[in-house]
């Protein structure tokens, strides 16, 4: 039932996916906090969640890509460039993380020595914190409005529309009757 409600309401689903992603992201950034095994598993989970996030926003990606070189609202353009940078950064961070992984049981042989993967992983991960922070900052209005709506909605439900039918019909004043006639 709840799952159906989430699918019917993509904004709610977006908010929960983003919230989980954000929490996982700030946690996975600290290797000393999680330990290597959790760090690597959580990193992979974030990569999957990141792809889900893109799929959920696919319409926006396509529409802005098609209009990018035409006239476009400046904030969307800035968003697009930032998101592209974030995508590239997280892609490199994930790829380098998989290559240098110790607990996933993968062996890349000579490919592991082809590039300074460890340094690349650390730098892209640190840089991603800045890009994610900017990404969150640019969407603060959306986050505030949706959090109010779906997370902190403690208000009593509004009266339903059918209740309005029982309201007394306003009676026209004498002046209105004169103007009407």
């Amino acid at each position, binding site marked *: 039932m709840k799952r159906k409600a989430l699918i019917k309401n993509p904004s709610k689903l977006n908010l929960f996916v983003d919230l989980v992603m*954000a929490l996982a*992201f*700030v*946690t996975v*950034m*600290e*290797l*000393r*906090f*999680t*330990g*290597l*095994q*959790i*760090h690597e598993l959580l990193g992979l989970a974030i990569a999957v969640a990141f792809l889900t996030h893109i799929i959920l926003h696919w319409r926006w990606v396509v529409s802005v890509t098609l209009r990018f070189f035409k006239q476009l609202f400046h904030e969307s353009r800035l968003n697009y460039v930032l998101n592209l940078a974030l995508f590239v950064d997280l892609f490199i961070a994930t790829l380098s993380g998989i290559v240098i992984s*110790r*607990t996933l*049981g993968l*062996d890349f042989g000579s490919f592991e020595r082809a590039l*300074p993967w*460890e*340094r*690349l992983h*650390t*730098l892209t991960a*640190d*840089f991603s*914190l*800045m890009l*994610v*922070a*900017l990404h*969150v*900052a*640019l969407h*603060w209005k959306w986050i*505030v409005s949706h959090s109010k709506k779906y997370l902190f909605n403690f208000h009593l439900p509004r009266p339903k529309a059918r209740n309005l039918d029982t309201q007394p019909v306003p009676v026209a004043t004498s002046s209105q009757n004169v103007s009407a006639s």
Partner: protein
Amino acid sequence: MAAQRKTTPIRGIIIFVVLVIISGIGLYATNNFDNPLSAVTGLFSLGAGGGQERGARPDGDFAEGTRPERGGGGDFDERVGENGSVNWSQFGEVLFNVWFIAAVTAVLIVVQQTFSFFTRWMRQRSPRVATT
């Protein structure tokens, strides 16, 4: 019916900014405050083979080729934290990441609000063209 004016949640913004400042001071006082800009300088010096990383990364301490083998355990695992368990003494670092995201958001909100305030002020001051 009077048109409803779009209002900005100024009170909420002020509370948020104050919370970010206070928590920043708290993180600094508890020695959990790193310079996030060091990652940028590190990125630019990547080609030169240098680069300073944000915080003291345990995996950054290893020279090329001296990183322990897969599943080797030992010193590396001790410094990183036990595999499969969370090292709660490092929780401040996680809070720093949360704080950093909040701080960037706070800066952007303040800049955005200040800019829109001055834009409105300039518009109000500029003489209106009389329409006949």
